[in-house]
């Protein structure tokens, strides 16, 4: 049995009165590629943001490897719940488990491409600069950007920027890499070059969770597909099953809107 990298159980999240996530369970095993699809506002991005602690959950449990990042305790009145996150130093360790690639890339514009990739490992992981630089250059080479190391993000196309962002995330050597609609800000041509990279990572057995609107890509790249709608997981399973033979009416409807 593969080791479990991430386990999220009974996740609840609301923004004021709006329930965005209702009792979500998500387990990601080592080497697995999980795609999350669903209409806008279904909660899929929020789920990633909760998994990466950019949003705080209102209920449930988040465990990375064997380290509990957040758990929920029922208060003495037996009704109200309180979410407790791990302490600062523990969270710092847990955060090393994952990386996140944003829809809007969010590169640091004042740093060169190489520095963007190197800064995390050098400044946060306190690793040897020479070693990191070599790795960073190899990563950029893998992304097809070896000649862009010394330029600045503003001189790159969106697709190139996103590939730098992927290199930056990989340089931290995360156990699992999250993608939050990585190609939604790109035109079709640039989308292809980014998807190609993600496919390559999948072949190398990189553990990934990808929120995407690229259906055929999701079908091709993932081991498991999750369809979310209205803050719940409607359907989950083998991509061939979910795309070829969806069980739920809502899934059928959603997928139909893509084939029309």
């Amino acid at each position, binding site marked *: 049995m593969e080791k479990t990298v991430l386990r999220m159980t009974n996740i609840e999240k609301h923004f004021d009165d709006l329930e965005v996530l209702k009792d979500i369970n998500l387990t990601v095993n080592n080497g697995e590629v999980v795609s999350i699809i669903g209409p806008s506002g279904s909660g899929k991005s929020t789920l990633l943001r909760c998994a*990466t*602690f*950019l949003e705080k959950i209102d209920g449930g449990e988040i465990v990375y490897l064997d380290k509990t990042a957040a758990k929920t305790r029922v208060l003495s009145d037996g009704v109200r719940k309180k979410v407790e996150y791990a302490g600062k130093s523990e969270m*710092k360790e847990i*955060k*090393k488990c*994952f*990386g*996140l690639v*944003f829809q*809007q890339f*969010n*590169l*640091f*514009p*004042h740093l060169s491409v190489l520095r963007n990739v190197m*800064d*995390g490992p050098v*400044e*946060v*992981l306190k690793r040897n600069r020479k070693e990191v630089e070599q790795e960073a250059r190899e990563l950029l080479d893998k992304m097809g950007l070896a000649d862009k190391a010394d330029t*600045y*993000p*503003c001189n790159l196309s969106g697709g190139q920027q996103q590939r730098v962002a992927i290199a*930056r*995330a990989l340089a*931290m050597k995360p156990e699992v890499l999250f993608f939050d609609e990585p190609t939604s800000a790109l035109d079709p041509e640039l989308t292809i070059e980014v998807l190609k990279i993600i496919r390559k990572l999948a072949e190398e057995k990189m553990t990934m969770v990808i929120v995407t609107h690229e259906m055929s890509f999701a079908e091709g790249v993932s081991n498991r597909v999750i369809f979310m709608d209205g803050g719940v997981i409607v359907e989950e399973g083998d991509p061939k099953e979910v795309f070829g033979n969806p069980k739920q009416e809502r899934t059928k409807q959603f997928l139909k809107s893509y084939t029309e």
Partner: protein
Amino acid sequence: MTFSTMLRTMSSGMLRTLLLFILTLAGSIPLGMIVVFLKKSKIRPISWLTKIYIAIMRGTPLMLQLLVWYFGPYYVLGMKITSGYKFIALLIGFIMNYAAYFAEIYRSGIESMPVGQYEAAEILGYSRIRTFFKIILPQVVKRILPAVTNEVITLVKDTSLASALAYQEVFSLAKQISASQTSFLPFVVAGVFYFVANYVVAIVMGRIEKSMQYYK
């Protein structure tokens, strides 16, 4: 009075003006940063007091503030004012006033930063301090530079308000010499001085802006 004597007399005023200008900048630029942090403080009374401070600094004339700093200790606290205190009062007045304006400029820059920059830094595991100094601040500096230039140029001219305390800077001297010599020339000299000083400021700030144009 010959023109060269007049120039020599006024040049001592120019030096005083420049001294006031440089010390005010040296004090208010860092103090403004502290003011922003205080205003953004999560401790309510601190941010509240900072807001009042900024409101007063911006809402009353700088000339009035200078008079308060100078005469306040005598009238309010009954302290004896020494002659050396005048320059201190001027410095406090100018620095406190300009720090408030700089703080608001810094705030506008900090608040204009996209949230994605903070989130990217957080995901990479940067501490809050590292995020601010390595990611946010360098970009904020670039964004606020034009507004800062404006403020610095205003300061060059505002130093003339020190004449309210009879501080012998270039504007005071120009007025005095003009009156005693019944001559218009001292005003021309003072005008040229301010203009040239600001021209230099504009060139220097332009250079700094240019040095940051390597990224967008």
